[in-house]
């Protein structure tokens, strides 16, 4: 299965949490490959280990057994510089203006500041925040703050973007809008994105591939390619093919 285009390779990854003598299986037998440039949606209920898996990919969590390999000959991967993170909350620094918030990773990595500043402006334009560079986070809506957080994740030009339910705290309409915009950003920025969500339609709508995880016990239940054309539009959600994909996930999660 592993080919030259494979960017992420996971085989038999298993993670156990130990708390006060009790063991909790967070991830078991996670096996999948992601090609460079894919947008993979990890979907499942709470406790299925999707966030844990994301943190393993980020290098923040250890794991008991299995193989995690990121990078390829054509796309070498530097774990210190090639990860951009977006969380459920924007987590912008309240005391920094939007532009300076976007610059945070560049500062930590010690990238040349003048160039990064230029790039931050371009990225803010890309996420639709032109004109908000000098505002403080509290002057922006939740959706706009999350766009700034996406720009921050892109500032150091990482090859892999890890998103942990980034639109989970937004209202339904803003969320749909952000889905469309994320797809545009993904097409322009040409990044590999791993997107964790518990929204089934969101997973199918965004993903080039959907990986379904189930809870109790944590298990990888499915991994399929979403064969819907790009660019995607909201009316695809009413198409027969889209319905097939979402029903497939609902069935796996026992919700049909």
């Amino acid at each position, binding site marked *: 299965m592993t080919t030259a285009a494979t960017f992420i390779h996971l085989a038999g990854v298993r993670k156990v949490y130990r708390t006060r003598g009790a063991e909790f299986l967070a991830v078991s037998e996670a096996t999948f490959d992601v090609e460079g440039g894919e947008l993979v949606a990890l979907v499942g209920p709470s406790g299925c280990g999707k966030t844990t898996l994301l943190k393993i990919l980020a290098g923040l969590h250890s794991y008991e057994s299995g193989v995690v390999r990121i990078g390829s000959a054509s796309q070498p991967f530097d774990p210190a510089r090639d990860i951009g993170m977006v969380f459920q*909350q924007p987590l912008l620094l309240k005391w920094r203006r939007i532009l300076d918030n976007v610059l945070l990773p560049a500062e930590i*990595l010690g990238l040349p500041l003048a160039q990064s500043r230029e790039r931050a402006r371009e990225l803010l334009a890309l996420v639709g925040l032109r004109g908000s560079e000098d505002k403080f*986070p509290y002057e922006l809506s939740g959706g706009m703050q999350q766009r700034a957080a996406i720009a921050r994740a892109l500032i150091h030009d990482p090859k892999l973007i890890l998103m942990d339910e980034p639109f989970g705290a937004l209202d339904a309409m803003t969320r749909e809008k952000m889905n469309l915009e994320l797809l545009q950003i993904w097409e322009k920025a040409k990044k590999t994105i791993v997107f964790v969500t518990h929204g089934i339609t969101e997973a199918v709508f965004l993903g080039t591939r959907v990986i379904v995880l189930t809870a109790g016990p944590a298990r990888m239940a499915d991994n399929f390619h979403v064969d819907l054309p790009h660019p995607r539009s909201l009316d695809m959600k009413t198409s027969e093919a889209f319905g097939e994909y979402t029903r497939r996930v609902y069935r796996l999660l026992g919700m049909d």
Partner: protein
Amino acid sequence: MGANRDALQRYSFAVISHLLLVLAWYLFVELGHVPKFVMPSPSETLQALLVPNYRWPENIAVTSVEIFGGYVLAVVIGIALALVFTWSRWLEMATMPLLVSLNMIPKVALGPLIIVWFKYGIGPNIMMAFAICFFPIVLTTARGLREVEPDLLDLVRTLRGSRWQLFTKIQFPGALPYIFSGMKVAAILAVAGAIVGEFLGSDRGLGYLMLQVQVTLDTAAMFMAVILITLIGSVLYLLVLGLERLLVVRDARLQ
């Protein structure tokens, strides 16, 4: 424009309510024929300033030095100690519970001891002010430094950021609102500390003056002293407030 008018309106109301209080005070004394030694009128209170024997400028200066000295000392040492805690978990675990227990001591009760140990005068009174306002500063600062979003920590870790970068870019600026909330509480306490110190033992200062004029039943001078002490405290509080406005973005301020 709207915000400006709002602010103007708020300030006008504040000024009016203060003036009304003075007016009520005046009317109460005048219409109620309240004896001067029970409650002097506003004008009698002001006239107390004219008594040269009371050496107002010197007493104001002494009390101010005690308040500001104890306060600045508490801010510097309190913040420094909290910073040390964030770098050494071991030290924090050993010292923090001790500080919490020591905080339970009514600092005023230490007054007689301080006099036994250090005699009386400006120095011991600075110490009194310090003792009373040190704890809120160290406790709130330590708390602020602990409150780092775990996800932000992860963000810095994925970028292999250093402990120093985490501190300067996220931890310390994030703790500033907490530091200021502790500093504001401490500003009010510092005044109380200095005055209690003067009550217990001193030969100068507004608190000392109050005890002197109490003997002669010059209530007007006592009123004036209380007003001046309040004003010194207000100046300190406003300075802290101004510094907070300068350093902390509006949304981040703790109310």
